């Protein structure tokens, strides 16, 4: 088994009161900032981030260095740190913000310095109101110490950061929805293409939108250097430490720090202590509810973005939801679909109309009114939504869970429809082996294309 890492969570393990900036500095905080501002140019910093090979931790696993280099020459630029963590099953950003806010702030300051940004925001989910207060007081402490404000550390670099409470919807975490929300509008995502936030973002200016964990990673990369950072994890797949949040039917749920070479099986059995009551495992969602589900046969996979992508799933937010043999897949699917129904923003037609329709059908199947043609109908609706929406939401929590659960756990859904009631099949009978997928007519599109498209969408 891979060794637990002690990088992102180091100071937290030492039980320091890290909301106090003095404690953070005592534990080595703000040294990366000093290194960056005093000894590095912004080009060197961007190169450092590119060299580190870090993939954004927001879910799609898009290269952070690439994102930064897409900003044109236009000024001013803005930074939006995305702390609107609301993906079901994810709780890593919350841990970082609660446990070590200055690590995130330090990363934000370094990012702003590298990108020539003088104004940044951190958009924090509205329900995390204590975190917002704590963040504001952390900003004030940083201002008093001279890490924020005018002429930071005597380098002539000015920066101010603000915390903004989220507007209470999942869609506010979509990067352009977040920008609209910051501007004071309904968080309707913008059309992409033609313009991505790096070109036209907040107030029409180039904007960097990065996840909270990515910001914390920036501090680490600059602190230890890209070469050392690259040694963590796998250079071919995903570098650096990751926070995995394990929840569901495991004995010891919680957030754990590992590199991405650890397998899902190790995480579940060795780290989280196995399944409750030593039951059999039935399915695992590896990266928040949007990530396509994995069957017991597929869990012996490394947790890198690339490895999960090859399986037709995705790294997502690292929120791992484990389900044991007593779980009803139709319940799971109904839960996921109800979430999508509730959180669809309603801007574009396919997601607004299609997602609730699927939810209705799934609920009907659960209550014993399923029809022969319903699975085909659901798959067809998935096809009609997929790729036709304004943002990835219609696909991520809208289509992917439905399509993958329907295909992989087809025997259990068939049983629900045939027996006209909710059925939980024994694990071995409940899912299909990968080579059997093709027996389900009709499989819409290329099932394994899913995550590649997510990568392209940033």
């Amino acid at each position: 088994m891979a060794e637990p890492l002690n990088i992102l969570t180091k100071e937290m393990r030492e039980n320091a009161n890290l909301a106090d900036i003095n404690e953070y500095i005592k534990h080595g905080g703000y040294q990366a900032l000093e290194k960056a501002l005093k000894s590095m140019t912004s080009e060197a910093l961007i190169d450092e981030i590119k060299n580190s090979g870090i993939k954004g931790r927001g879910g799609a696993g898009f290269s952070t260095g690439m994102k930064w280099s897409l900003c044109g020459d236009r000024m001013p630029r803005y930074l939006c740190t995305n702390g609107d963590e609301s993906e079901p099953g994810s709780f890593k950003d919350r841990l970082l913000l609660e446990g070590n806010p200055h690590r995130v702030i330090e990363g934000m300051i370094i990012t702003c310095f590298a990108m020539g940004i003088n104004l940044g925001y951190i958009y924090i989910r509205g329900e995390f109101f204590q975190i917002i207060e704590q963040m504001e007081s952390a900003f004030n402490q940083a201002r008093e110490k001279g890490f924020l404000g005018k002429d930071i550390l005597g380098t002539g670099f000015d920066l101010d950061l603000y915390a903004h409470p989220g507007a209470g919807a999942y869609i506010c975490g979509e990067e352009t929805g977040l920008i609209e929300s910051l501007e004071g509008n309904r968080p309707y995502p913008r059309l992409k293409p033609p313009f991505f936030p790096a070109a036209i973002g907040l107030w029409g200016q180039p904007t960097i939108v990065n996840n909270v964990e990515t910001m914390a990673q920036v501090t680490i990369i600059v602190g230890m250097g890209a070469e050392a950072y690259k040694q963590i994890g796998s250079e071919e797949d995903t570098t650096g430490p990751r926070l995995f949040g394990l929840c569901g039917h495991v004995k010891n749920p919680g957030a754990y720090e590992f590199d991405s070479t650890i397998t899902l099986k190790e995480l579940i059995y060795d780290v989280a202590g196995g399944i409750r009551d030593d039951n059999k495992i039935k399915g695992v969602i590896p990266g928040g509810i949007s990530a396509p589900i994995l069957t017991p046969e597929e869990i012996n996979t490394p947790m890198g973005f690339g490895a999960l992508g090859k399986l037709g799933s995705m790294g997502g937010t690292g929120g791992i939801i484990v389900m044991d043999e007593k779980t009803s897949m139709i319940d799971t699917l109904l839960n996921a679909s109800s979430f999508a129904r509730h959180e669809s923003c309603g801007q574009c037609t396919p997601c607004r109309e299609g997602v609730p329709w699927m939810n209705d059908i799934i609920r009907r199947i659960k209550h014993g009114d399923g029809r022969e043609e319903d699975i085909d109908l659901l798959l067809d609706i998935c096809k009609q939504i997929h790729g036709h929406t304004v943002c990835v939401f219609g696909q991520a929590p809208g289509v992917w869970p439905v399509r993958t659960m329907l295909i992989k756990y087809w025997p259990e859904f068939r049983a629900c429809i045939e027996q006209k009631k909710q059925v939980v099949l024994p694990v071995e009978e409940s899912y299909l082996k990968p080579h059997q997928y093709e027996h389900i007519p009709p499989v819409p599109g290329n099932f394994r294309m899913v995550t590649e498209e997510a990568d392209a969408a940033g």
Partner: protein
Amino acid sequence: MATITIDDIEYTVAEGRNLIDAVAELGIDIPHFCYHPGLPADGNCRMCLTEMEIRPGQFGMVTSCTMRIKDGMNFRFNSPATLDNRKGIMEFLLINHPLDCSWCDQAGECSLQDNSFDHGRSKSRFIETKRVPPQKELGPHIQLFTTRCILCQRCTRFCDEITGTSELGIIEMGARSEIAVFDGQPLNNKMSANVADICPVGALVTKDFLYKPRIWHYEKINSVCPGCATGCNTTHEVMHQKIYRTKPRHNEEVNSYWMCDEGRFSYHDWQDLDRLKSPMKRENGVLVATTWPDAIQLAVDGLSGLLDDGGNSSVGVVGSAMMTNEENYLLKQLAELALKTSAIGLYRKPEGEEWTAKGGFRIEPDKTPNLRGASDILGTSDMQGILDGINSGDIKGLYMLGGHMNLALSESEKSTLSKLDLLVVQDVCDSDLVTLAHIALPGAIPFEKDGTTTNIQGRVQRLNQVAPPPGAARLDGDILQYIGQKFNTVLGPKTPAEIMGDISEKVDDYKGLNYSMIGESGALASGVNPLEEAGG
């Protein structure tokens, strides 16, 4: 110009326009709901998604409404991906739509119906319960049938970008989304009824056109709004010589796609006007009805008598900004050729409210349609000279055109006009003018005549007759020609088109104008057709 490829065929279209507009000129229709040429594109309905070559050999779906044409673009309009998406979007839009076409006023001009016919399924796969949000009153003119709404947001964009008043918004999320107004802030801006025109379905309807006959039963007659000097282009929808609805007609130079509510609903006031339906003469201080020959004879005898007694300067004429260019021209001919007087005036209505919308649409303070044209033709823009002449006793007889709906003469005007020995008026209703008149001749309202008016920009635009004048009322041009005939002066008979021919010869600014050149979208009075000038 740019060369683009559509389904392997090359076309040349204007560069920089969006795909929907560009191919519309080629006669290719891309179905869409949320896009409206008068509004910023939003791309939310997803109906116009079209396959485009994004990288060499790789195709992806793009929204046609936001895709600006560049040289070398390659589209697939008939590929399975494009067609399947249209079919899918149609299905999604209809699953919660009530399909109450049988009693929906939009039927016949509904994008949802048309696109469903072209791209939809014949049978629904939806067996769940439909959403049924309640109907709402959004404002004094607009009602929302919430069930029919497809949330294309044309109306909210209109209120944000065109009027700048932002009354409409969306409440709730996802499938629960509804168009709504804030409590106590109804949709009552001066252009609110336009949202019913741009609504692609029957969700937003004017209360004025609720449960009316089917739209295909109407005859559509193009005209110009008589409400102010802007001169919005309109289309009247007419059945049995009665207007059921007035809609703005697109003219980018004048009103774009819009018109104000006051102008839109003014046809009611005109149609309900208590009209003067027979000629009147004053006997013992009281106006009594009489016949046309009698009234005309009295007028001609009276005017001739004054001319004989006091010479040519003892009679004046006053034109009207409610009348067409042709009628004012006939009045001028009458003054010059028959009465041989140079005392010509033009009554100016006091100015009203003025308003400019965020998008540039303007309601002019001058509440008459043809002040510019009447002053061009009569060569004067007020009647102060006439009033002075009456007060000094020089002018004893006056021939005056009215035609205003609610004319309110000032006290000084009234007392001056009451000094006249003979006041002959042409008017449409019992006004201050008729109260003072010795002879009142019943004329026509703007919807009852053919002719042209000139708006504040100097654009000459055509009116078309919706209905003949009621009762014994006659067209004002015919009355003037009849009077001229009695003076042995040949003013006609001429049609308005022929009179425009005379105007183009005699009036400098109108040189070269004729009805075919004016056409549906008007022509500038400088004599140069702006369309020709622009190379179109």
